[in-house]
C-alpha cells in the first residue's frame, strides 16, 4: 500500500497541496485526476522525493519512504526528459544502475525492455535521433527498467498516438497485475475509467473524491436509478407513466432516459417496456467519470 498522508506544500502564497491524503493498493491502477493546478504533479514529485513537502508523509508498506525505498520506485515525470546524446541502451543501463542494479543485471534489464518495447533496431542510436514515439518508449522503459515496486507516472498518455496508448496501457496493466501499485495522472477521463480500478480526484490541493471507479459511479447516482431504454414501434414513452416510481427524464434519438425513484424497480420498467413494443436497448445508466469529476470539482 502506497500512502500519501496529509501532504502540504506551498510556493510563497500559492498553496499547491493542502493536506492531501489517499492510498493506492498493490495490484491496482489508480487514476489521479484533477483540474490543471490541482497539485497532481507536486504530489507525485513529493512521492519521488524530488520535492520536499512542508508537512505530511509518504509511506510504502507502512514505513515512511526514504531514499533506499525510492530507489525501487519507477517514475515518469510530466516533463519528459532523457539525455539526448546518450544511446538508448547506455541510457537504460545508466538509470537502472542509478536505481541500484548491478552492472550485469542493468545490462540484461536494458536488453529485455528494449526487446519488449520494439527498440532493438534503435538500441545503439542516440536518443535525439529517435522519433518522438520511440523516445516515449524509451521514457517508459527508463521508468520500468529496474522492475519497480511502485509506479508513479505523470500524464503518461499525453501525446501518445492510439498505438502508443495501447502499448502503454498494456504495460501498465501487466505491472499492476504483477502486484505493483500503479498511479498515474491523466486528463483523459474515459481512459482512466476504462483502465483503472481506483480513482482519486483532487482539487485545490485536497482530495475531493476517492475510491473504486465502480463504487464512485454507484455512489454518484445518489438514491435514484437511471435507465436508458429504446422500444421499437413506440414513440412518445407514454407507457412509462404506468410504472410506479418511474419518471421520463429525457427522450431523443438514443431512446428514453427514465429516472426511477421511491422504490421504482428496473424489472417492472422492463416488463412495461416489453408490453409496449420490441425492446432494442435497456441499460442502467451510471454517471460517467467525467460527470463525477465535474460534480466533484464544482462542489
Amino acid at each position, binding site marked *: 500500500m502506497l500512502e500519501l498522508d496529509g501532504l502540504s506544500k506551498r510556493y510563497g502564497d500559492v498553496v499547491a497541496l493542502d493536506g492531501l491524503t489517499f492510498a493506492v493498493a498493490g495490484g491496482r491502477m489508480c487514476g489521479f485526476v484533477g483540474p490543471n493546478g490541482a497539485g497532481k504533479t507536486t504530489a507525485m*514529485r513529493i512521492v*519521488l*522525493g*524530488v*520535492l*520536499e513537502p*512542508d508537512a505530511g508523509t509518504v509511506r510504502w508498506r507502512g514505513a515512511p519512504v526514504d*531514499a533506499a525505498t*525510492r*530507489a525501487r*520506485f519507477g*517514475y515518469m*515525470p510530466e*516533463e*519528459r*526528459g*532523457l*539525455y*539526448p*546524446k*546518450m544511446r538508448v541502451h*547506455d541510457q537504460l543501463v*545508466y*538509470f537502472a*544502475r*542509478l*536505481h*541500484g542494479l548491478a552492472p550485469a543485471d542493468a545490462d540484461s534489464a536494458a536488453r529485455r525492455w528494449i526487446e519488449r518495447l520494439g527498440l532493438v533496431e534503435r538500441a545503439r542510436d542516440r536518443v535525439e535521433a529517435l522519433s518522438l514515439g520511440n523516445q516515449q518508449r524509451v521514457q517508459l522503459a*527508463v521508468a520500468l527498467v529496474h522492475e519497480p515496486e511502485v509506479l508513479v507516472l505523470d500524464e503518461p498518455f499525453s501525446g501518445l498516438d492510439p498505438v502508443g496508448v495501447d502499448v502503454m496501457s498494456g504495460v501498465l496493466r501487466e505491472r499492476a497485475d504483477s502486484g505493483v501499485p500503479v498511479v498515474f495522472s491523466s486528463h483523459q477521463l474515459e481512459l482512466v475509467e476504462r483502465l483503472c480500478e481506483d480513482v482519486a480526484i483532487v482539487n485545490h490541493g485536497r482530495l475531493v473524491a476517492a475510491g473504486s471507479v465502480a463504487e464512485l459511479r454507484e455512489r454518484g447516482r445518489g438514491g435514484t436509478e437511471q435507465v436508458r431504454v429504446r422500444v421499437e414501434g413506440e414513440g412518445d414513452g407514454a407507457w412509462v407513466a404506468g410504472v410506479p416510481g418511474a419518471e421520463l427524464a429525457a427522450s431523443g434519438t438514443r431512446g428514453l432516459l427514465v429516472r426511477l425513484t421511491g422504490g421504482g424497480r428496473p424489472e417492472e420498467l422492463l416488463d412495461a417496456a416489453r408490453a409496449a413494443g420490441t425492446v432494442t436497448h435497456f441499460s442502467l445508466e451510471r454517471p460517467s467519470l467525467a460527470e463525477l469529476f465535474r460534480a466533484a470539482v464544482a462542489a
Partner: protein
Amino acid sequence: MSGRSAIALVARREILERIFEKSFIIGTAVTLVVIAAVAVLPSALGFGGRDEYSIAVADPAMRPVADAAVRGAGAFDAEVEIVGGDAGVTLTEGGIRAEEKPDDKLVNLLQAANARVSSGAALRDAGLDAEQARRALSPEPLRVTTVEPVDEAAEDRGGFAFIAVVLLYGQLISMGYFVAMGVVEEKNTRVVELVLSTVRPRVLLAGKILGLGLLGFGQLLLLAAAGIGAAAASGALEVNGDVLVAAGLALAWFVVGYAFYAAAFGCAAALVSRQEDLQSVISPLTVLLMVGLFVSFPVLDDPDGTLAEVVSFIPPFAPMAMPPRIALGEAGALEVAGALAVTVGATALLIPLAARIYSGGVMRTGAALKLREAWRAARA
C-alpha cells in the same frame, strides 16, 4: 545505493559521454599539436641564439669601425656581416643611417666599435705601439660573480612558466564551461527530474564535477607530458627534478582551482534553464578567470614582486599565479603551502554554498533565478 557509489556512477557517465565526443577528441589533438609546436619552435627557428646583423659602409673612412664591429660582436652575443650595396643600417660619414629605428644592440655595438677605433687612433698618436694600444683597449673582462647561484636554465623555464599559465587558464575555463553546460543541458532537457528521483542534487553535482575534473586532469596531464617531452627532445628545456616538481605542483593547483571554479560554474548554471541564458550568469566567472590570466603575465616578469606575492593569496587567481612562480623558482615552500591552504580553505567554504544554490535552482525552470531565490528555495 550509497552516496559515494552514486557519485561514482554519475562521474563515470560524464567521462564516457564526453571522452568519445568528436569535438573533445579533436580539441585535445589540436591543443597537443599547438603545445608541442610552442615547445619546439623557438629553438627550431633559432630564437634565443645569436643576433645577426648586416651593415653596409657608405664612407670608406668608416671601414675600420665596421671591421671593429665585426671583431667585437662576440661580446654582444651577436654576429655582424659587412655587405656591399643595401643593408638596413649603413655607416656614413660620422654617423649611422637606417631606414627605420635600428636595433639598440646594433647601435651600442657600433658605438663601442667607433669608440675603440677612435681611442686606438688617439693612443697611437700618443706614441703607443699597436700591441700596447691593443692591450690598453682590451683589458681583462670584468669577472661577474653573484651572491645567489645563477640558474642557467632560468630563461628556458620562463617559457615553461608561460605555457603553464596559459594551459591552466585554458583548462580551468573550458572545464568550467563543461560543468555549466552539463548542468543547463540537464535542466533544459528536463532529464534532471528523472535523475533527481534517484539521487540527491548534491550527489548529481558532485558526480558531474568529479567526472569532468578527472577528464580535465587527464587531458592536462597529457598536454603537460607532450609539452615537456617535446621541449626536452628539441633541447628547448632541460628536464630535471625541478621542472618535474613544478609540473606536478601545477597539476595540483589545477585540482584546487578546478574545484573552486567548477563549484561556482555549477551553481551559476543552475540559475538558468536555457543555453541562451547561460552566458549572462557565467560571465562574472569567465571575467574573473581572465583577470587571473592577465595578472599572471606581470607575475611571469617579476615572480618575486609584491603583485606576485599578493595575487598568490587570492583564491580565484592563485591557481594561475602560483604555478609560474614555482616554475621560476621564486616561491618558497612555506609560501606555496600557505597559498594552497588559503585557496583550499576558500574552496571548502564555497562548495557547500554552491551546492545549496544548485539544489535550490536545479528543479526550477523558466526565467533565470536570482542567487537569493535559489538560496531560499533550497531551504524549503
